């Protein structure tokens, strides 16, 4: 455990694959964490100049401002299609996108499932914070039953709006993907009120690297990061971490749903 902590600490500070621009992400948001994990992985792989990212619509729309690689922007939900078009023309490049739950699981579900079903050699990172962040806190496809949002002011009524969608398992229901994993990214409360467990970031770091490796081996890689959105959940940062651990973690359990190349075993 302590070795892992040290490894994480060594990646703090500037990275060649970060532009150094301060992010617009809110304090306590996991988007910033994931941005750093991606940049660190690209640096380790030494592929910055061979990578093209696709910016999606949502809180990750400005991710190209922070990750220092070539970038194309996709219309809302269409990142998997844009990634596919890029990859078919540039098969030796690494391509990836960070999508939100509204982007990937609502308006862009068709593009996600078809790219997954074809097993396109692309990498998609899903930030599932159970709400529409960028537009100000509306219901998402992943919003838990009963959760209050600006469009479910009395709590999400699943009789009217359906049940929350489990993206990782939905993607893994197809034969196409080579790697499907779900990671719980936020820090977790522990028995001690002042101590939080950051294992999620370490798991996330591993998953990001594995997802890129799977693409390099020609497979479709999808990682869902269960995350928080304290601003739109209308909680303090610490309350949001507690809510994520108590409500989201059981709803979206961590798991490895597909690992065709056995990259997790190393």
């Amino acid at each position: 455990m302590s070795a892992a902590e040290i490894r994480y600490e060594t990646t703090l500070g500037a990275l060649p694959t970060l532009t150094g621009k301060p992010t617009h992400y809110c304090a306590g948001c996991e988007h910033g964490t994931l941005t750093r994990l991606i940049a660190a992985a690209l640096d380790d792989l030494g592929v910055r100049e061979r990578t093209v990212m696709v910016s999606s619509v949502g809180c990750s729309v400005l991710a190209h401002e922070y990750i220092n690689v070539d970038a194309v922007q996709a219309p809302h939900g269409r990142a998997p299609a844009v990634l596919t078009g890029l990859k078919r023309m540039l098969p030796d490049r690494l391509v990836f996108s960070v999508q939100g739950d509204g982007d990937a699981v609502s308006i862009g579900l068709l593009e996600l499932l078809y790219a997954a079903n074809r097993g396109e050699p692309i990498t998609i990172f899903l930030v599932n914070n159970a709400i529409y962040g960028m537009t100000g806190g509306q219901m998402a496809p992943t919003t838990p039953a009963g959760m209050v949002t600006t469009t479910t002011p009395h709590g999400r009524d699943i009789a009217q709006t359906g049940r929350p969608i489990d993206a990782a398992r939905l993607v893994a229901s197809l034969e196409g993907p080579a790697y499907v994993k779900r990671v719980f990214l936020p820090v977790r409360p522990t028995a001690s009120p002042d101590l939080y467990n950051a294992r999620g970031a370490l798991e996330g770091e591993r998953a990001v690297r594995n997802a890129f490796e799977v693409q390099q081996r020609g497979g479709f890689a999808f990682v869902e990061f269960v995350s928080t959105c304290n601003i739109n959940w209308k909680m303090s940062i610490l309350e949001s971490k507690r809510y994520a651990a108590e409500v989201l973690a059981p709803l979206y359990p961590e798991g490895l749903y597909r690992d065709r190349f056995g990259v997790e075993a190393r």
Partner: protein
Amino acid sequence: MIDSREFLKGNEALAYGALRTGLNAYFGYPITPSSEIPETLAAEYGRSAYPEFKAFLQAASEIEAINLAIGAAAAGAKVMTATSGPGFSLKQEGISYAAAMELPILIVDVNRAGPGLGNLGPEQTDYFQATRGGGHGGYRTIVLAPGSVPEMALFPSLGFELGFRYRTPVVILADAFLGQLKEDLVFPPVAAPAFDTAWATTGARGDERHVLSSIHLEFVDQSRHSEHLREKYAEIERAEPRSSEVATDDAEVVIVAYGICARLARKAVRELRGRSVRAGLLRPVTLWPFPSQRLRELVGRGVRNLLVFELNSGQMVDDVRLAAGGRARVESFGRLGGLLPTATEVASAVEAMLR
């Protein structure tokens, strides 16, 4: 593989024309009356005759198709997608993004009849959608209007040339008649020009990286980008209008028609000349930029009557009226629902206008 001389449908000719100019990728969704385009390309995909044709994919939807095209275009590829009206509507969001990110994508619309599902016959009812920038946010696409099967074969080459020169999406606006019509044609030699793609996103070069994005949150940044697009469109309007003419030298009345209508109008002009009516034809080849200057010249030279013949209830007629500036009588003549008038009916409409 085909010979240089062939007897083909317009849709097939267009597909081969694209291949012979070095098409790299095709993404599309089947829709009548455009489906011979993907079918022809699918048959040729993977054959050694067209080594530059590296990707063919039948998409899950029109929306996926245009976004696959965005990805390939961002990589600097010559990419095409083809559809008909309902699919053209679905692609508009993507075309808006492509215009904003300045991506050269060739989009073919084989216009069918009617709003909604309509029918499979020819109309020119997508004129407004194609020439006004059919999606949101204010942009234009270059719109080419072929008038024959040989031109269906030639226009992909012209489309890519203009698309890459101005870094902008280009629409080939055909109709069900041209798509399904079979004609003799002679292909020009295979020529796959390489265009400047230094802007493409293929990976950073040291500190230099390319970002193709349509989001400019600072108002001054969006203003700068939108002004840049406006200047580009003004330059296209200056430099690229194309048209052709029949018997306009001494004409007192000119029919303005494009696509299949221009063919009928040509015959109508012959009939009218046979009855000593000094009729001519102006055929816009680019619908945007519209050949307004040429029309103004004709009006300035004494053409006082303009009959705009199109398979809709009057769309291009607006552009003709704007160009004529009130100095000529402008009337609209058309058919709807997939029907075509005869050349004699077109000639009668001209004579009625002159009475």
